[in-house]
């Protein structure tokens, strides 16, 4: 078990009593179907070491998620949040950006879930990802602060030299097709396209208006654009 230098004292609920009392033994790849793994994990014997027990439970939940078990995946992602927050805090991420790190890490887990090897500690795997994402956010924030200023009046008064009124005539014909395609999307995907693409809102702005996370908007926009491309191609 790899040692993790997290200040667990400040995150008393990371390995809370619901996690600490389970001891999931590791299995070989693809040995059990997802839902079955979740059920078995929940009935494992009590562990002497809460952290090790939680790590095994997370590892088993991730194996189930790799097999397509959505319930196990939701439980795992929820359990990960306190640890991600602790790591972001330790790295010095400011309080109002910690949830950005959480959402980045959740998206990274999702995109990299096929790369998790159950023979290794899930806690260590998650900790490295959270640490990297926290550093990424700190660097991004510093870069933004160096090159961007908040000047809403200057922005509104800026002349768009690339504006071309005649182009809008050609666009009108295509707009009807796109509008019809957008209407066929599921509600959340339609909302992401509406706010981010049609209304040209920034990600934080759209997140505030819709009361959804930036990560959720990104995921839905990505899925929506893929669906739109497929639909418009099939109509042509």
């Amino acid at each position: 078990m790899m040692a993790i230098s997290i200040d667990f004292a400040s995150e008393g609920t990371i390995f809370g009593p619901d996690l600490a009392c389970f001891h999931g033994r590791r299995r070989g790849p693809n040995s059990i179907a997802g839902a079955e793994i979740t059920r078995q994990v929940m009935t494992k014997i009590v562990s002497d070491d809460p952290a090790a027990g939680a790590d095994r439970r997370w590892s088993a939940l991730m194996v189930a998620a790799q097999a397509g078990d959505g319930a196990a995946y939701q439980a795992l992602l929820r359990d990960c949040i306190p640890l991600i927050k602790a790591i972001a805090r330790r790295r010095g991420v400011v309080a109002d950006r910690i949830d950005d790190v959480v959402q980045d890490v959740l998206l990274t887990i999702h995109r990299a879930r096929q790369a998790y090897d159950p023979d290794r500690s899930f806690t260590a795997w998650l900790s490295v990802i959270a640490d990297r994402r926290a550093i990424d956010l700190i660097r991004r924030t510093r870069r933004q602060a160096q090159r961007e200023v908040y000047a809403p009046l200057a922005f509104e008064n800026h002349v768009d030299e690339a504006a071309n009124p005649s182009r809008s005539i050609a666009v009108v014909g295509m707009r009807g097709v796109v509008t019809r395609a957008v209407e066929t999307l599921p509600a959340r995907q339609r909302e992401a396209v509406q706010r981010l693409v049609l209304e040209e809102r920034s990600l934080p702005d759209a997140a505030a208006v819709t009361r959804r996370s930036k990560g959720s908007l990104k995921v839905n926009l990505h899925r929506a654009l893929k669906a739109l491309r497929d639909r418009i191609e099939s109509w042509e």
Partner: protein
Amino acid sequence: MSTSSNSDSANELLIHDLATDLVPVRRLRPPSMRALTWLAVVAAVAIMLAVIGDLSALGHRLSAAPDMWLSVTGSTLTAILAAIAAFQLSLPDTRRIWALLPLPAALLWIVASGVGCLRTWFVPGTHAADLSEARDCLIFIVGLAVPLSALLIIMLRRAYTLQPKLTALIAGLASAAAAATLLNFFHPFDAAATDLAVHVFAVAIVIGANWGFNGRLLATNFSTQ
């Protein structure tokens, strides 16, 4: 309080979105096994080239100047170790120090090639490549490294790296070193200064193109969404 509950509900929505329609994924094999797959393709290409290459000239060259083994060994080891490092770096939890794995072999390759280059200056009668041969070397290394790089990047994209530029750079080194190794089948002489410069230029092109182009490809890896 409301800010906290807003962020909690935002996280909860994201989790719900990610778990909805979750598709099963095939777990990746260990990085060393995946590197072996790519190296097996390189070995298959090597066997095909050996059939049409000048093997007797290569054998004569290696027996006449045993230190040339060092250059071939260096480039071969660089290709193997860089491939392993690239597959390691393609995982999101890998330390950047893996990028140093091919460094000793690359140094051996560079130093041994430099020694061969010096021989062409000090040993009379040593064949040195002319400009057209040097151009052929450039075309061979770049032409072979492109498909090898493409295959490597396709394989690397199955994982999800958090260090796309570094991973692509090391992948470029693996492809360039593999192509330079295979060049030996058609290069039965030491690299003269111009020839060596062309080799270095070709390897730099491959690594630079990987770093610039394939780095972006790895950075926009949404294959598992």
